[in-house]
């Protein structure tokens, strides 16, 4: 499994755009890049997933360069409620319909007023 490296913590203010970068130098051809969000005392929640280039949904954008050795989760105009831990995961595509998620330490994002 490809190992991921991301900052332990980040600080931001309300209304700012936050970019969290994750390194995954050993990513394999069949691996997807996936981000989860975890609030205190809750289970992780899927945010976004991508394979290459750019993916955008109602919550975030995910930028993946051509070499796929890193990815950047972009949160536009964060609010206090975006304070959470954000996990970057590399998930094998595999031949089965199920996957094991390997969570790292994540990035603790603190949004201040």
């Amino acid at each position, binding site marked *: 499994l490809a190992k991921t490296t991301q900052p332990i913590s980040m600080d931001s203010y309300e209304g700012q755009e936050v970019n969290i970068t994750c390194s995954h130098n050993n990513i394999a051809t069949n691996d997807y890049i996936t981000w989860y969000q975890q609030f205190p005392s809750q289970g992780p929640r899927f945010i976004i997933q991508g394979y290459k280039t750019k993916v955008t949904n109602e919550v975030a954008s995910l930028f993946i360069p051509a070499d796929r050795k890193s990815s950047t989760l972009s949160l536009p105009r964060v609010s206090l409620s975006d304070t959470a831990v954000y*996990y970057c995961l590399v998930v*094998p595509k595999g031949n089965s319909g199920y996957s094991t998620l390997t969570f790292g330490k994540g990035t603790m994002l603190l949004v201040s007023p």
Partner: protein
Amino acid sequence: DTAVSQTPKYLVTQMGNDKSIKCEQNLGHDTMYWYKQDSKKFLKIMFSYNNKELIINETVPNRFSPKSPDKAHLNLHINSLELGDSAVYFCASSQDRGSGKSSYEQYFGPGTRLTVT
């Protein structure tokens, strides 16, 4: 409507006891998982069941025994509880997307905080 539910939310018990945590999902998913999040916040997979069959069994003491009575339920029974078992246990589920697909989108329950004294 709760997608993945767990009971109990909190569980305090003494060393040596046997306890169970229940999990139910109403999403119609084929695969269910148990994860353990320790005091350092590391989240690790323990077990995975696909259509009631065990498919993933990580290095977990055999005091932990998952049971899946049907596709919507995955319970976790723990025998002879130890202090080190104190953690938050999360149940999750995902849809079997078929051959060649990756079930990267897993739905997690609210967690069960187990405290062993």
